[in-house]
């Protein structure tokens, strides 16, 4: 995908580049596959199968050392499969940032878009844009701020984790968009009076629904904000290849730091480079001058003027911006090990090898102490500001309904990656990215919007996919409060409590029977009870109807009533977070939120 305008002659080192490309394609496909399979799929042939996802769909997040490090700092522990991050981290100590160049699906996507031609990135400008720049150190400051935030107990900065960002963008923007696109194309094809249009539509529908589409069209709030950010990250590649990876990515920064002592280095044979015939009678005559000018422009930025030939081919497809060109120091912490420079060099003047050479300053990121302190202060200072802003601290938002199994809010915010896996898997589409419900610190964390979809009583998939335990993995028995000693549902997980809006409720306000809420209520005994009442109809007759009430002791806050309420626009019953099991404070009833009194000895 990264073949540039200047085609180098065929060389034997091109092979490793093809392997890298295959690795990127493979991991990207795996990523998309796992994300698409982050969906409840019933096995119609096996009723006994537990309702579990067949694949470890959050695996990319669990391989992620940044997620592991941040949650390790904020919780002093590693949840479930997060220890798998060592599979990436330990080889990075030895090899460098191979994960960025070979595995990271967002990196691969940036790589792909970085190969797109743009007017701002041609000839000399391309070469100049691929030289190392000081701005690439920004990501280290992002990382240090993220780690300070984590120390203070907030996983907020994982918003910028590349895997979290990609899962979120795909689950909330791209896949629902593809679903809508397929639907609109097939609908349009159906309307066309052309022969074969319907068949084409059917085939398209069939293929799409068996590959990438979910069971039904998902709808999410905040698609525009998330979509614009994702598009911006991709389009920045048209200015500077892999701008995100080079400048912003905190995971890249972490892996860059981890590669500090790696013995794998780019070895530059300057003598070979100088005496290369490529620049003397220039085979690249048509753009040699441009290349040279580009080098001169770039040379002003980097301290040692890179004296190499006029060739610069090693810079044409450089991904990391790590200065592979002889004459300039190689920046180990920036290199993605993409092997483009090695493959592009006409003289084999570059090669990766193990070298026991002493470490140089340019092995590390060369941070400035003042900026580093500044970023640490920013991280530390951001949190009080974020936490004190708004009313969240003193007045929890009534619509902050967290999925079942969620930890108490501060514990939840220590862990939540905002990856959107739970929103992707939620079978009713009820889990949505928050905007203000959880305050700024809780931006894009999951909230249940029962009007969109209620919490299925028989489903605990959100806890199964959560990589960090913000939604702790609970069993179905735990959710409905059933245990070996208590085969009947006992003390279930509550996520809120339902309330009637009597001014809109049919039996209360309109003297009409309804009771859909009572029908749907999944608890036994039902949390909605009915009281007969005589109401006066608009014509003056007295009529007996049964009016519904919520029993807050039994209500689990699943929202099935709110979802099913026939008052379609603003329902006559709605759920708020009060009474949620995870909180001792957010309670109405005196007996809840306290430790049960030990039974008196008999």
């Amino acid at each position, binding site marked *: 995908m990264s073949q540039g305008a200047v085609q180098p002659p065929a060389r034997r080192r091109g092979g490793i580049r093809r392997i890298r490309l295959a690795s990127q394609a493979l991991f990207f496909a795996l990523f998309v596959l796992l994300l698409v399979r982050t969906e*409840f*799929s*019933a*096995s*119609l*042939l*096996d*009723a006994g*199968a537990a*309702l579990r996802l067949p694949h470890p769909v959050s695996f990319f997040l669990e391989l992620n050392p940044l997620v592991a490090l941040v949650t390790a700092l904020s919780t002093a522990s590693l949840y479930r499969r997060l220890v798998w991050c060592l599979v990436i981290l330990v080889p990075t100590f030895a090899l460098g940032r191979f994960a960025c160049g070979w595995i990271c699906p967002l990196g691969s996507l940036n790589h792909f878009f970085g190969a797109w031609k743009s007017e701002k990135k041609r000839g000399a400008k391309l070469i100049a844009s691929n030289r190392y720049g000081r701005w690439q150190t920004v990501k280290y400051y992002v990382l240090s701020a993220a780690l300070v935030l984590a120390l203070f107990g907030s996983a907020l900065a994982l918003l910028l984790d590349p895997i979290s960002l990609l899962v979120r963008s795909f689950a909330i923007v791209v896949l629902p968009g593809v679903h809508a696109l397929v639907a609109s194309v097939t609908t349009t094809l159906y309307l066309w009076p052309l022969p074969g249009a319907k068949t084409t539509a059917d085939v398209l*529908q069939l293929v799409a629904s068996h590959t990438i589409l979910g*069971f*039904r069209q998902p709808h999410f709030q905040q698609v525009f904000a998330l979509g614009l950010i994702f598009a911006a990250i991709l389009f920045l590649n048209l200015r500077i290849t892999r701008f995100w990876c080079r400048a912003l990515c905190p995971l890249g920064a972490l892996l860059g730091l981890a590669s500090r002592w790696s013995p794998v280095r780019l070895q530059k044979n300057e003598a070979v480079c100088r005496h290369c015939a490529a620049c003397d009678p220039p085979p690249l005559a048509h753009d040699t001058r441009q290349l040279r000018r580009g080098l001169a422009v770039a040379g002003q930025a980097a301290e040692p003027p890179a004296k190499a030939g006029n060739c610069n081919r090693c810079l044409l497809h450089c991904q990391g911006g790590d200065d592979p060109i002889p004459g300039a120091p190689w920046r180990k912490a920036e290199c993605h090990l993409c092997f483009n420079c090695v493959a592009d060099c006409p003289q084999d003047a570059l090669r990766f090898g193990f070298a026991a050479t002493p470490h140089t300053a340019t092995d590390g990121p060369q941070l400035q102490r003042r900026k580093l302190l500044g970023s640490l202060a920013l991280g530390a200072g951001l949190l009080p500001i974020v936490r004190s802003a708004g009313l969240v601290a003193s007045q929890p938002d009534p619509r902050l309904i967290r999925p079942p199994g969620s930890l108490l809010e501060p514990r939840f915010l220590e862990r939540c990656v905002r990856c959107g896996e739970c929103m992707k898997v939620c*079978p*009713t589409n009820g889990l949505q990215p928050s905007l203000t419900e959880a305050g700024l610190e809780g931006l894009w964390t999951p909230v249940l919007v029962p009007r969109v979809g209620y919490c*299925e*009583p*028989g*489903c605990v998939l959100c806890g199964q996919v959560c990589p960090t335990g913000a939604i702790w993995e609970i069993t179905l028995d735990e959710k*409905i409060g059933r245990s070996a000693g208590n*085969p*009947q*549902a006992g003390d279930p997980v509550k996520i809120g409590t339902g309330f009637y809006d009597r001014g809109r409720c*049919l039996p209360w306000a309109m003297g*009409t*029977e*309804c*009771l*859909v809420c*009572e*029908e*749907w*209520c*999944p*608890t*036994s*005994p*039902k949390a909605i009870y*009915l009281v007969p009442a005589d109401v006066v109809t608009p014509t003056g007759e007295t009529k007996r109807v*049964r009016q519904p009430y919520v029993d807050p002791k039994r209500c689990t806050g699943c929202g099935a009533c709110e979802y*099913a*309420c*026939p008052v*379609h626009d603003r329902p006559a019953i709605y759920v708020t977070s009060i009474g949620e099991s995870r909180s001792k404070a957010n309670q109405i009833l005196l007996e809840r939120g306290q430790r049960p009194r030990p039974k008196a000895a008999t």
Partner: protein
Amino acid sequence: MDKPSRADRRQFLRALLRVGGLSAVSVGAGAWLKTRSRRPVEPTASVVRRRQFVAASPSLPDLAITRGESPRALVRGAVDVLGGIRRFVSRGEVVVVKPNIGWDRAPEFGATTNPEIVAEVVRMCREAGAGQVIVTDMSCNDSRASFERSGIAAAAAGAGATVILPEPRRFKTVDLRGEVLTEWPVLEPLLTADKVINVAIAKHHSLTGVTLGMKNWYGIIGGQRNRLHQRIDESLVDLTAFVAPALTIIDAYRVLMRNGPTGGSPADVELRKTLIASIDPVAADAWVAKAFFDLDPPRLSFLRLGEARKLGTLSIDPARVGERAV
């Protein structure tokens, strides 16, 4: 100084043709589109009339009751009492078997039809030579989860049925021609099937007292059906009249006595090990309501209205009832 070059005649004519052609096409297209302007009218739903009630036979009972240990034997015995499955299904016919798969509950909670009974009905239809047996329902909870956990999808598919999930594309809006129900999206297999067999389960329900066979037709429509509750009795009669089932089977093996129609606790379920099958949807519901819920059938509005609409009888002649222990 050069004189400004002048277009020669050929260029001038060519330009004239271009401009003239574009103008002509625009004027023509504009005029044609203008004639097409009408206030948009949504297409009216088609009317589908179904009439599949099986006529009473003087030699055979109208209603069968079986009691026994095995759900499979119960349903086979009951259909046998009514004269065998060939009375209802002919060779090559497409049959829709409509169980209650409304909720994401395991069979022992009594919220969904017993999977063994559904499978046995499918098997009998296959034995009668049915071309295709379709099992479908519009669940309230997530349909995938409900179809799986109820055990019905696996059992029915194992018995040779085509299990159809209620995806949006499976619905077609038709005019039900009811008293309160007119245009509603209906599961399409119900519209095209030759025969429809109701395999309901007996459950408590706060609004209608019980949910039995007639209430099970709630599960063939989509759309904003939660509005039906406002006139639930008329709605159920409309739906039953529309479907006109060949056979109504009510599974009373497990009966959900309380907290219906969802249940959720084994304590709500009573083991009654009974099954009712009838050619008369009103009589079947009336018998179960009386026998298991101690409700007086004439006081249940949907049954009274159903009788008034000539869908069946409230008080079946005991001579027309066949009972058997299996």
